[in-house]
């Protein structure tokens, strides 16, 4: 079988060797835990606790604020210190529950389910919803919403996004190697919801050990198969992954379900397993702490709510002062100006770089080389769109299909003139979409 792939894409330096051989370590936070009420797409959660309340690990501290929303659970025991706006990764101030960690990690009881196969579809979705699971690859879309398409019988692919195409990230890789049975377990639970679907684990071929291990483990699973994907960024982008696996192409106005597909990230599927089988809500996630500025780049199982500066301490602190600290990978992650920011459900990595490549180059004139067009997985023309963005030409921006941009950043990466293409397109997209909503 040939490797699944898509047209376009880039091959940035992947930096994964820094942390790929470091097993996941469980670490416990010492300082205050901060739980932003909005760590997902949709309505913010509503607090269930008040200042002064004592909370246990695993206790629900905020209720979903609507259907497209997710509850939030405490990941450590302690006393609620404040409910106040705190700075989050994207730079905004978000109302957050602050818990003074008592360091005891007293926990509520979790009740596992003997046989998941006896659960009904409604029960499974209910458990996933109740556990506060959201897409942990970065988007943070509530998983129970994703798993409730209009016509579930039309879903014929459940795709586990094991591509991990972002450079430097190794959390999914370690998860696949260390807890493959949980990933497969999560996949089996999701497959229980979709009778006509088969499960596909899409793994980039730079992880041959994962492909081998999972293929072996899925040998006796008639509904699950492993598919090797070409190593290329952005292979793990939802639309590109669906195309690589199923040959179906969706555009910006379609959902994966329109192509009969459901896509979930590795960590999300493991969270589904923990929630449905073990009865545990979403309290932890794997974070790769890496980059040439930290002493010991590695993968950690981190309590959601842990302060980023604690994460840096876990990795041995800084050996040199970093120039740029990024939450997530270097292609789509967010740069932060300080470290007083909490880990959320969507924090996949903390990348600390000693050099800022962006600042090293000054953008110069476009020479029309068309490299951005060649690499664009959405097959649009980034260089023109950036011009329309700079000139505020909304009509031309739409005519040249600017809204199809998936914001992967491949164009800005490849541009020899070092133009800020993706950045310009992203901001114009926001303007156009906002104006559309006004109409």
């Amino acid at each position, binding site marked *: 079988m040939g490797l699944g792939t898509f047209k376009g894409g880039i091959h940035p330096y992947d930096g994964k060797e820094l942390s790929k051989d470091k097993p996941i370590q469980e670490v416990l936070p010492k300082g205050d835990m901060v739980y932003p009420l909005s760590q997902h797409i949709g309505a913010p959660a509503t607090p269930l606790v008040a200042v002064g309340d004592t909370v246990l690990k695993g206790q629900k501290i905020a209720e979903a604020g609507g259907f497209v929303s997710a509850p939030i659970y405490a990941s450590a025991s302690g006393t609620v210190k404040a409910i106040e706006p705190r700075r989050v990764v994207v730079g905004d101030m978000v109302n957050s529950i602050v818990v003074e960690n008592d360091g005891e990690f007293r926990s509520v009881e979790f009740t596992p389910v003997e046989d998941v196969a006896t659960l009904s579809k409604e029960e499974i979705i209910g458990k996933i919803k109740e556990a506060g699971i959201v897409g942990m690859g970065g988007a943070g879309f509530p998983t129970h919403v994703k798993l409730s398409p209009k016509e579930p019988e039309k879903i014929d692919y459940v795709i586990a996004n094991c591509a991990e195409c972002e450079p430097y990230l190794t959390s999914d890789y370690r998860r696949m190697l260390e807890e493959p049975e949980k990933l497969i377990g999560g996949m089996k639970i999701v497959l229980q919801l979709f009778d006509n679907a088969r499960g596909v684990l899409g793994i980039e071929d730079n992880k041959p050990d994962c492909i081998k291990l999972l293929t072996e483990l899925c040998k006796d699973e008639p509904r699950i198969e492993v598919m090797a994907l070409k190593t290329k960024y952005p292979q793990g982008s939802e639309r590109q992954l669906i195309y690589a696996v199923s040959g179906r192409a*969706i555009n*910006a106005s379609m959902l994966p379900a329109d192509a009969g597909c459901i896509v979930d990230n590795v960590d999300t599927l493991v969270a589904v397993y923990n929630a449905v089988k073990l009865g545990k809500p979403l309290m932890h996630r794997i974070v790769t702490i890496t980059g040439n500025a930290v002493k010991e780049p590695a993968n950690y199982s981190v309590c959601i709510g842990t302060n980023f500066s604690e994460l840096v301490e876990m990795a041995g602190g800084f050996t040199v002062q970093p120039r740029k600290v990024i939450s997530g990978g270097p*292609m789509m992650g*967010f*740069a932060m100006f300080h470290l007083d920011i909490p880990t959320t459900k969507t924090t996949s990595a903390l990348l600390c*770089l000693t050099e800022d490549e962006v600042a090293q180059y000054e953008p110069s004139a476009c020479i*029309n080389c068309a490299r951005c067009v060649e690499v664009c997985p959405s097959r649009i023309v980034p260089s023109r769109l950036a011009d329309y963005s700079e000139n505020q030409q909304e009509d031309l921006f739409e005519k040249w*299909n600017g809204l199809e941009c998936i914001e992967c950043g491949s164009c800005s*990466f490849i541009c020899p003139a070092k133009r800020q293409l*993706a950045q310009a397109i992203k901001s114009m997209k926001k303007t156009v979409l906002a104006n559309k909503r006004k109409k």
Partner: protein
Amino acid sequence: MSDLYNVSSSPHVRSKDTTSRIMLYVLIALLPAALFGIYNFGFRALLLIVLTIASCIVSEYLFNLVTKRKQTIYDLSAVVTGLLLALNLPPTLPWWMAILGGAFAIVVVKCLFGGLGQNFMNPALGARCFLLLSFTGPMTTFANSRYYISQGMDAVSSATPLAALKAGQGVNTMDMLIGRIPGTIGETSVIAILIGAIFLILMGVIDLRIPGTYIVTFVIFVLLFGGHGFDWNYVVAQLCGGGIMLGAFFMATDYVTSPITPMGKIIFGIVLGILTGIFRIFGASAEGVSYAIIFSNLLVPLIERISIPRPFGKGGER
């Protein structure tokens, strides 16, 4: 605060390729043709190459100085323009015309329209056509090649193989392939040009969309309208003569003046092939590559407008 970090919108990494590196690749790719030109035509060719390049660099430097712009000569694009222009000049051209041509290319065709990336016409070809119109005599007098002189011919030849072909005379296609024929400095050796072209393709600087469709369209045009039927000798002579190889691989592929859209590149190549065929076969002059390319340059905005690519996932495409 002591721990403030750099903040910018993603992506946070950049590829190593820069504009000047691409220009350097183009220069390297032009070396075989340039070296062969110097071998073929001697010291005069070297002199013209050096003068034209120097003229381009100095013009750009002065223009930026006078207009108080950021200095851009380090991106090497002026060097590329100078070398390309020199390769398109006959080796016997008076030296001051070469300098004038370089200045025209940079100041009039490139800088006055906004500099690199903004010119709508290939600067080297714009300057060549300017010289051709202004100094038709010197621009169409071609010195004989080293090989032909060694064969006992006059140092000053009157006809390039293409002109001979137009006049209905026979030509030696092997001489044309190797390049031991009269012509401009860099256009004569098909082999030297192809070595450079292959290098550019391997380095990912150009692809075959434009040169491929250009050459194929031209061949079809010549077969249909050349008046020689399926005479492959004639077709090969048409391909190896004049500036079509240099034009197809090094000037039609000029990023700035060719379409950015994939389909646009193919349309561009087809238009070039047809125009070159019309100019060469039905025109008064034997050559037509330069005019075909600068004319097509003007069509680029129109071509792009009709070739907006269909985005991923639109139109029921698999």
